[in-house]
């Protein structure tokens, strides 16, 4: 499996556009900056929705209004982050795919998506009974806390990707090599 992922990443790395994007100082930095600055729209809105559910922000605004109205800018932000994230991966595929932080981040993003789905489902089922309450019911608050926790770790992992602590190019414990998917005799890092 690790070899398959590695070979795929090498194939992507060999495409001329990947090289161009990686080696274009300005383009790469523009993409990375857009990815980071869009946090203000995507996570900014998401955190405000979560804080509303916890009763820490906008307690006198109906929860459904906050969730509904901020959902559109949030999704616009996440779309931009998704596109720029794909481009960042496309520019540095081999190192990304073998970064344990990248892998943890991807797993957490799946967790975030599942949590968001459950959160909205539970909210839509019951919101009419607590819409004007300062705090959402415990079940919804748990989802909001989980969302805040997941996304905080996603941001931390995203930041850690930039560091080379567990890169395959260095001697690593067998467990780290397994988790990172290092391939024996690999020539591309």
């Amino acid at each position: 499996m690790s070899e398959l992922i590695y070979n795929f990443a090498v194939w992507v790395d060999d495409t001329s556009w990947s090289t161009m994007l990686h080696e274009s100082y300005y383009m790469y930095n523009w993409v990375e900056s857009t990815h980071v600055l869009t946090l203000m729209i995507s996570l900014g809105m998401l955190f405000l929705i979560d804080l509303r559910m916890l009763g820490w922000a906008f307690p006198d605004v109906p929860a459904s209004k906050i969730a509904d109205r901020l959902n559109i800018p949030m999704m616009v932000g996440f779309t931009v982050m998704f596109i720029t994230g794909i481009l960042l991966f496309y520019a540095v595929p081999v190192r990304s795919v073998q970064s344990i932080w990248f892998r943890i981040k991807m797993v957490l993003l799946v967790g975030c998506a599942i949590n968001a789905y459950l959160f909205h489902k539970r909210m839509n089922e019951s919101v009419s009974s607590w819409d004007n309450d300062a705090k959402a019911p415990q079940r919804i608050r748990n989802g909001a806390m989980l969302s805040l926790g997941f996304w905080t770790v996603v941001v931390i992992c995203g930041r850690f990707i930039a560091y080379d602590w567990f890169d395959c190019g260095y001697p690593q414990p067998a467990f780290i090599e397994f988790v990172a998917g290092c391939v024996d005799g690999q020539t591309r890092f």
Partner: protein
Amino acid sequence: MPTSILGPYFRTIVTVAVIAAALVFSFTYARDGVYVEIQPLFEWMETTWFGYVGKTWGAAFATIQAGHLIGLAVLGGCVLVSDGRLLGIVLTDVPHRIVVDRADAVFFWALATLLLTGVFMACGVAMKIYYLPVYWYKMLGLACGILFHYYVRRPLVAHELGSINPIVLKMTAIASILVWFLVAATGRWIGFSG
């Protein structure tokens, strides 16, 4: 009394004058004397506990950086919601007053997070940022942002919003979004410099 001479815009005019003076100071030779004088402060920052941890423990530095980004996300969210409401883009069915006041409460904590984590990060790379022009642009932007938020925007929106010229309100909202975007963008630029 200056207030009576300048009318209800006294605080705004003083704040704009301070920002203008800071800009003139920053972009002329006037800053050179102060720039050399504050070098020992930056050298000292690197010797503090924050500086020691920031320089020697990469994981702690990166985690604080992530905290800084989360603070930025929340601050950006507050600015976009509050100014978006003044522009008539988001939460248009919630009264201005509620959106602006509630967003401001969260904004304060986000700004406090940014300042705390920012000081930690600055201590870890104090001498590097001392020589980076973009760091000083960011500090200038941050000072302008804080002054603008607390001494121009906040007093303005404290009035009955219906009595304020809508163009003034919209220009204030746009200026607020731009100044905080500038702070965030120059912060990102620091990462690419040096």
